[in-house]
């Protein structure tokens, strides 16, 4: 009996403590907490969002924004794990190409009813459309980029080469530059993220496409094979850096910064990197060479709101603040991305910037990753086929095999 009474007593104490605890935490947590998972773009990303949250909280003291910065490499994996255990943040930055998986699994909230028409109108339409699925807006673009060709002016001059506008000219210029000791004409990416994209540039130029009209893979098209053979012969003739399949995008960019590569295709953020790390590099930016058609690759990252968030109104309020001219201008110039708001692109800092202009002018030709479930696997299959080709495998049969694998993933 004595035992029972003690345990009852302790139970009572426990309950009262718990009640006390709840009331205490209620009074402390008067502010509504909104958690925001942010992708790491550079060392400036974290401080930018922290400052943004602080400014927002000043005018909205009832809302508390919690920023969590996560590296790109692990972002999708972290979000996936968080979502499956139901501890995800209220909103997050994601690669827009993942969005279709999120929408299909019903974890992303459509924003149409939550954001105003005026807010939607702020965005550059080309960047808002990748985040729109089945007629509904799920993701608002937070970062946007296109790809263009960077070239080293000094090397061009030394080699007597000209800035190419077609792929034939590119091969020609690359051959001339490669004759200079310890330099390579064309920097070719051969591993990790976007290896497939580096292959698409030339494929698109020849009139190729990722998918056929019926939605099945078009990887083994004649345009694709022609592009594969061209790149293969460039490798064989030493017009690229040796061992391409051990170079990811950053590795090739580093070669370019060191002035050892004549030309490479990459995103606008290299401009900022060169400014910081190789300020003396004499370089220019030109459109990606064309074949029968012109094309570049467009990429956006989106901010999404999760369906299980309990603070949707507060989160949208923060988005509204985030996508104002003043806040976005700081971000775009800091990180070196293209402006996603019309008003920002009209600011003199961007409208009169030659580098930005080159990229913006390419946008009408930009192609985005198709919004298809399982795209990351398709990209991986393609990258592997491309690596085999760069290693000397037969272009036609390798691409045929890869096309079959892609179709299996696409269910075609």
């Amino acid at each position: 009996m004595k035992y029972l009474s003690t345990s009852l007593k302790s139970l009572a104490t426990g309950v009262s403590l718990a009640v006390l605890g709840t009331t205490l935490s209620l009074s402390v947590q008067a502010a509504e907490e909104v958690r925001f998972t942010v992708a790491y773009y550079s060392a400036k990303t974290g401080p930018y969002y922290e400052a943004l949250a602080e400014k927002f909280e000043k005018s909205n003291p009832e809302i508390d924004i919690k920023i969590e910065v996560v590296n790109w490499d692990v972002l999708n994996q972290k979000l996936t794990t968080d979502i499956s255990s139901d501890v995800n943040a209220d909103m997050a930055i994601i690669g827009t190409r993942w969005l279709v998986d999120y929408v299909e699994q019903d974890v992303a909230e459509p924003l149409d009813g939550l954001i105003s028409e005026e807010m939607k109108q702020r965005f550059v339409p080309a960047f808002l459309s990748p985040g729109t699925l089945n007629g509904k807006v799920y993701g608002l673009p937070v970062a946007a980029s296109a790809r263009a060709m960077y070239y080293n002016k000094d090397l061009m001059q030394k080699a007597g080469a000209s800035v190419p506008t077609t792929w034939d000219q590119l091969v020609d210029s690359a051959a001339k530059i490669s004759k200079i000791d310890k330099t390579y004409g064309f920097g070719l990416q051969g591993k990790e993220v976007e290896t497939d994209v580096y292959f698409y540039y030339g494929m698109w130029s020849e009139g190729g496409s990722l998918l056929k009209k019926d939605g099945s893979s078009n990887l083994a098209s004649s345009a694709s094979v022609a592009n594969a053979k061209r790149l293969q012969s460039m490798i064989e003739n030493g017009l690229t850096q040796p061992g391409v399949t051990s170079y990811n995008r950053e590795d090739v960019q580093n070669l370019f910064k060191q002035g050892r590569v004549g030309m490479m295709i990459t995103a606008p953020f290299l401009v900022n990197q060169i400014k910081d790390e190789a300020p003396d590099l004499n370089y220019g930016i030109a459109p990606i060479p064309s074949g029968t058609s012109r094309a570049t690759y467009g990429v956006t990252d989106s901010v999404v709101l999760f369906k299980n968030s309990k603070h949707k109104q507060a989160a949208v309020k923060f988005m509204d603040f985030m996508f104002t001219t003043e806040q976005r201008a700081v971000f775009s110039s800091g990180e070196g991305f293209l402006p996603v708001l019309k008003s920002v692109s009209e600011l003199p800092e961007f409208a009169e910037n030659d580098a930005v202009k080159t990229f913006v002018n390419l946008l009408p030709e930009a192609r985005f990753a198709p919004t298809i479930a399982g795209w990351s696997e398709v990209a991986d299959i393609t990258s592997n086929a491309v690596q085999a080709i760069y290693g000397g495998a037969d272009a036609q049969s390798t691409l045929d095999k890869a096309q079959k694998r892609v179709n299996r993933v696409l269910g075609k």
Partner: protein
Amino acid sequence: MNRNLPLYLILPSLLLALFVISYPLYELINLSLSDVNRFGKVRGFIGLENFTYIFEDQLFIDAALRTVVWTVAVVGGTILFSVPIAVILNTEFYGRGIARTILMLPWAISLPMTAIVWRWSLNGEFGMLNATLMNVGLIDSPIVWLAQSATAFPVQIGLGILVSIPFTITIFLGGLSSIPIDLYEAAKMDGANLWQQFKRITYPLLRPFINMAIVLNVIYVFNSFPIIWVLTQGGPNNETDILVTYLYKQAFSFGHIGQASAVSIVMFTVLLIFTIFYARMVMKNEK
């Protein structure tokens, strides 16, 4: 005294171990027989579909065969190098303490870290390995080691051997110290040379320790992820993929949790069968 008392005494830890092992295994089997979405939500029972999917995948078959090569080469190489090194370290010589420390050092560094350091050393542009080989005059122009599987995979095997040696030597040194010195003294009296001493005394008495090292190393190496992932991520063109990197891509890059669980079950079964058979065989021999 109750004959079952020892059993009762180990029962709590036995139950705990059983739970810790069987619960994840149960979940894993469940997942491998289900249609699971990227976020781990089970959408229904689909029988053996995940298994047929992976067995129809050429990449899985290739990765499985490569895993066998990888395991045999790394474990075989490790044993081959570790036995003589352990024998040398067991003899008395000046600076033995330092030599032992140096050989054990790689063990103190985490595997991913070692692999990252080697990724730099193997770099085609400014890697230390190329610089050394060119200085010595073995090669004329730099080799981009990780650009093709023909050079990348052997390098990975070599690195696998390097990092497995310290652990294996530790086992062998323990074994060697249990061999009585008078056996060698007697052999010397009878005029046995060093090779005969090794063949007739050291090797037979070291045998149980070699067997243990083989079983433990096979289990570690078969499942070893960091070296291959850090150096090549299984590339180029999936040509250095082993089962565990294949599994990782299925689960975390493509969101095929079901298929990944099936791969995991296959790997578990292979290791289980190997361990049981090997343990049986060894025990029989020892009897």
